[in-house]
């Protein structure tokens, strides 16, 4: 029962954040580019996401005649499903006491938490691949293949960047990893494992196909990549999957590298409502960084992208693992 409540709560919160995120992104980008952005629907345009949702919901379903109909319909569902699967094991705040019981805002506290996330992200390849193939169009197919190859490549760096963190904490459980960073900001893995954090952030950006790694949907070459043929709700679902993934990696980065709900300064409290505050601030910061990148950087070329992933990120991550392992063995950290 409690689990069901948590599911509803976390889901509702995430959907709200997703909606806000689309609005915030457009507004912030607009400010960065000296524009106004959506400001008509509601105060400051805050109802814009709702308006968009309604519009997309009532649009006509279009399925291309040559498409493989079932796969075409299944692809966005797969995308959203894999995105949603990952959020179940993430903790969203410090443990707190309510109604005389200890609670943790987390649906399932798995012993293999980090591994599970790795497994689920590896499933994320299917959405783009299926969408790209089933649309039966060369743009979507190329977009899908690019997307999956990119995800493949950066998943490795992503996974390797966690290994150092896991070794230091001695556990796959995300809660343990967060607790291991208690103390001060100098105990955060973003400081202790700086190379891993950099690798993680870059690989995460690529994993969710954000600029400068948004090649799968590079509109100048591939129209809109794997979702060229999608419209109405199916398109909205892809958008939703993308933003959910973004939130997932932001939350995961906060948990693994930025000390989770810990304030980072010993004299500032990090339990209870404070913890939620810190946590939200950190997640917001990471999300803002994603938007900021989009407003700042141009897109990679495809070979640069692959070369960077395989020849820079993965070696750096491996070296970091070696160094961490040596430190763990030698100094018994």
């Amino acid at each position, binding site marked *: 029962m409690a689990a069901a409540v948590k599911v509803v709560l976390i889901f509702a919160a995430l959907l709200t954040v997703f909606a806000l995120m689309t609005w915030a992104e457009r507004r912030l980008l607009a400010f960065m580019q000296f524009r106004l952005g959506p400001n008509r629907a509601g105060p400051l345009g805050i109802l814009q996401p709702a308006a968009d949702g309604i519009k997309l919901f009532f649009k006509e379903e279009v399925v291309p005649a040559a498409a493989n109909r079932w796969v075409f319909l299944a692809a966005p569902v797969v995308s959203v499903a894999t995105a949603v699967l990952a959020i179940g094991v993430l903790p969203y705040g410090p443990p707190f006491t309510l109604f005389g019981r200890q609670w943790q805002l987390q649906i399932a506290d798995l012993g*293999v938490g980090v*591994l599970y996330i790795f*497994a689920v992200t*590896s*499933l994320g*390849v*299917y959405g783009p*691949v299926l969408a790209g*193939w089933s649309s039966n169009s060369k743009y979507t197919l190329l977009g899908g293949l690019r997307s*999956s190859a990119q995800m493949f490549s950066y998943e490795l760096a992503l996974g390797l960047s966690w290994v150092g963190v896991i070794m230091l904490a001695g556990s796959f459980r995300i809660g343990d990893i967060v607790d291991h960073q208690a103390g001060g900001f100098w105990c955060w893995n973003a400081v202790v494992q700086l190379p891993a954090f950099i690798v993680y952030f870059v690989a995460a950006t690529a994993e969710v196909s954000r600029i400068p790694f948004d090649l799968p949907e590079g509109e100048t070459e591939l129209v809109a990549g794997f979702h060229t043929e999608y419209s109405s709700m199916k398109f909205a679902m892809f958008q939703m999957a993308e933003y959910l993934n973004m939130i997932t990696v932001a939350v995961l980065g906060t948990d693994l590298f930025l000390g989770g709900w810990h304030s980072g300064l010993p004299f500032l409290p990090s339990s209870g409502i404070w913890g939620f505050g810190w946590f939200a601030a950190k997640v917001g910061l990471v999300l803002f960084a994603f938007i900021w990148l989009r407003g700042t950087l141009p897109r990679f070329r495809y070979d640069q992208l692959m070369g960077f992933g395989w020849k820079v990120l993965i070696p750096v991550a491996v070296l970091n693992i070696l160094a961490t392992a040596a430190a763990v063995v030698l100094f018994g950290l």
Partner: protein
Amino acid sequence: MIDAILFYVFAALALGSALVVIGQRHAIYSAFALIVTLCSLSAIYGLLGSPFIAVLQLVVYAGAIMVLFLFVIMLLNVGREEREGGERSGLKIAAGILTGVLLLQAGAVLLQAVVAPAPGFDASTHKMAQDLFSPRYLYAFEATSILILASIVGAVALAKKDL
């Protein structure tokens, strides 16, 4: 209780989609069905108290091997299986009979097996790591890394257009 229900649901899903795998003439549908089977098996591993293997099943099979299959299917643009040439029905009948015999034999073996779950079972990642890196399996473990390396090189060499 809920575990048992989940098990039978996933078992039915696994078996059903396995049948789809071999009943299909389109390779791509077979692949989809196989993915469903693999994911269901992952869930069953989880229900059998083996989270590490469950996750590995997802990472390796669903996340890597099947994507590879899909890639190849798309790359070669595999369509419907063609029925040309001899049917070789003799082979199929023999295979069916032998499979039946094997089924009976294996069933006989399995029925004799001790299948009551052992108490105090712990297959956590920690325990698995202790076992895998123990002297007993360490060499085999390292050997697998060589195997993987060899297969990478082999795959690249084989699939390359002009060496």
